């Protein structure tokens, strides 16, 4: 196969001129998407009872459901044989909805920053096409939709793919034309969504599938999509998702785990995870008699100043200092923005000590397993 494009490098290499070189060794970060091999799952490896919108298991992949079944999402070890993948994202229907209302929907998506998309030259006469490739498996055969959504300009393009054989891994390759209208913002904002539809009501299926870029029209977004929610026997797996410039799908770009993880940390970082037990998680000091401060340098620049998200059982955390400790609950506060490179949090509700005393923040017991403090800068 002649190679006509590798990432941003346009060239023509004759057939058979290279034999043993993998494209993934030539160009790094050709994949617009992050964590496409589903290997990083910081929040959890399995979440039950999903009915709405949120990041649940696999980093960077958000589930958005609206009144269409109840789902368990997990990081699965069911993978296509011999392809090098160790993990996949699994959606398992636990409460069915065989008759969706018009506005119901379910999809799994990843949102991409505009500054990472500038080389696609969207909105210009030389706009690049893009190719989406992935491995997928389901017991539910039929037509599925994968959609690109330009958030900056409210434009969409959809392609369909067919799962032909039940419970069999299949590789799909979909090419999307370049768009000469509407450029992506060159910033850290949300510019492009890549959505894998899994079901929808007639609001999104009653028109004609929009296979060329155009203004967003709900009726044209998911035409033909099967309803994965119609039975609790249904499940859907995906891995090896890659979106790249050009009209050819190259081999999946496997990244070293530290590189992949670091890319995820730009969007999500755990000061205390749900699975931490009897662990030291941060260092702090009594700024005053009623205020403990925890200045924390982050491992990488986050996309934006992050939200501090916390769910902490009463006194599940302890601040050990001077041969005693204070029990701490979900009363941590961000003190300033930190610009995504560091954060400073404080607790002035549960603190009572001596100014200047230093100590460490400790997650006390396995019985408080679900307590956590997260930093979130997702799109």
């Amino acid at each position, binding site marked *: 196969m002649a190679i006509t494009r590798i990432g941003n490098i346009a060239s023509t290499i004759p057939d058979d001129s290279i034999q043993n070189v993998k494209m993934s060794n030539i160009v790094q970060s050709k994949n617009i998407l992050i964590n496409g091999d589903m290997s990083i799952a910081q929040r959890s490896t399995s979440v039950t009872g999903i009915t709405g919108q949120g990041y649940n298991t696999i980093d960077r992949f958000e589930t958005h459901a609206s009144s269409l079944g109840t789902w368990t999402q997990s990081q699965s070890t069911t993978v296509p044989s011999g392809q090098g993948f160790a993990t996949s994202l699994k959606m398992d229907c636990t409460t069915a909805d065989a008759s969706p209302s018009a506005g119901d929907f379910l999809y799994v998506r990843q949102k991409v920053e505009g500054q990472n998309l500038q080389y696609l030259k969207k909105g210009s006469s030389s706009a690049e096409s893009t190719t989406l490739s992935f491995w997928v498996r389901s017991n539910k055969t039929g037509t599925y939709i994968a959609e690109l959504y330009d958030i900056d300009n409210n434009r969409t393009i959809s392609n369909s793919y067919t799962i032909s054989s039940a419970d069999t891994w299949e590789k799909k390759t979909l090419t999307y034309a370049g768009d000469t209208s509407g450029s992506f913002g060159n910033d850290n904002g949300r510019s492009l969504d890549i959505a894998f539809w899994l079901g929808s009501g007639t609001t999104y299926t009653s028109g004609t599938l929009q296979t060329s870029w155009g203004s967003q029209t709900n009726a044209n977004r998911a035409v033909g999509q099967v309803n994965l929610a119609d039975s609790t026997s249904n499940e859907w797996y995906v891995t090896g998702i890659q979106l790249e410039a050009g009209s050819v799908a190259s081999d999946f770009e496997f990244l070293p785990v530290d590189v992949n993880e670091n890319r995820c940390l730009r969007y999500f970082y755990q000061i205390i995870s749900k699975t931490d037990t009897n662990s030291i998680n941060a260092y702090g000091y009594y700024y005053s008699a009623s205020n403990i401060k925890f200045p924390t340098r982050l491992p990488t620049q986050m996309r934006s100043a992050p*939200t501090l998200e916390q769910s902490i059982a009463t006194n599940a955390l302890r601040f050990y200092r001077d041969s005693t400790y204070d029990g701490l609950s979900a009363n941590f506060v*961000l003190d300033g923005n930190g610009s995504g490179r560091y954060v400073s949090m404080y607790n002035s509700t549960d603190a009572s000590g001596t100014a200047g005393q230093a100590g460490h923040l400790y997650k006390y017991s396995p019985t408080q397993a679900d307590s956590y403090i997260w930093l979130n800068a997702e*799109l």
Partner: protein
Amino acid sequence: MIINTVTKNYSAETNEFCSYQVTYINSSIVKSVPLDEANTDYQAIQEWAAIDGNNIIDNGA
């Protein structure tokens, strides 16, 4: 998640308004949200506050 309350936080060092504390209906999750327009929770607070009847609590420094 549906926002229940939004309260202004003030810096322990400078006494300046420094972040929002957000609680949610039927949830034990509490968020402390920075004053960064690129932060999606900050954006959600602005949308929530723009709705008639939703008020940000300000207890002062």
